[in-house]
């Protein structure tokens, strides 16, 4: 059980994390997100971390994992709004977040996703 709102807008779900998540809450959020993707057949997922003050190895790993799982379910993930202090700390920590798509904010995230979906459609037409 966690208290993070999951919003559905068209084929995208948006998850603004507004609270300090402990490990179990992060895992439970991951599960909720995947359930929603399954339920709505979402094509895009934006996790807004602009209010998140700390991303440590656990939360970092959960974000990377969630993105990979979402991809396997047919949804592209964008992590939006990561604070510069958090970015620098992740670099110090040596956590590889390489595969994650990121955007400055939710709006940019939506643009990125629509471009990505355009490319996906092109591929499927070919």
């Amino acid at each position, binding site marked *: 059980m966690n208290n993070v709102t999951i919003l559905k807008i068209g084929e995208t779900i948006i998850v603004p994390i507004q609270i*300090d998540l402990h490990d179990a809450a992060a895992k439970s959020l991951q599960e909720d997100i995947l359930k929603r993707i399954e339920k709505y057949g979402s094509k895009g997922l934006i996790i807004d971390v602009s209010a998140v003050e*700390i991303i*440590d*190895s*656990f939360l970092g790993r959960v974000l990377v994992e969630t993105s990979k799982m979402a991809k396997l379910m047919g949804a592209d993930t964008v992590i939006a709004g990561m604070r510069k*202090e958090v970015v620098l*700390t992740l670099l110090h920590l*040596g956590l590889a977040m390489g595969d994650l798509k990121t955007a400055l904010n939710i709006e940019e995230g939506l643009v990125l996703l629509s471009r990505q979906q355009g490319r996906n459609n092109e591929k499927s037409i070919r």
Partner: protein
Amino acid sequence: MKKVSDSLKINVEVMDQEDVIVVRQEIRQLMRGLGFSLMDQTRVVTAVSELARNIIVHAGQGRVEAYQVIDQHRIGISCIFTDEGPGIHDVQKALEPGFSTANSMGIGLGGAKNLCNEFDIESALGKGTKVTITEWLK
């Protein structure tokens, strides 16, 4: 380095994940009060999160203390993480990047070391582990 008398600001018994959040928030608040930048707060509190999690994962429970320190012309903060868990067999190895045990994420200890100015660890098999980190105000 001298511990500032009567300045034990934080003393939290860590028993579950909720306590890790409490420790993070209290140490951030203490650092903010001492004038640390947001960057320094974020970096050190991330280390604190890793080390407090280690207590829960490896020892089940323990304690986190933090206080202000002074050293000639500078002030800083020290945080001490103690547990009476199984201890670490090979401390040097545990600090290597990529070292991982079955139920942890594998960058906790070495990662935490990279995140703060000073890092000290004492561990005795069967007795427990004590990690001290210190960050100086620039």
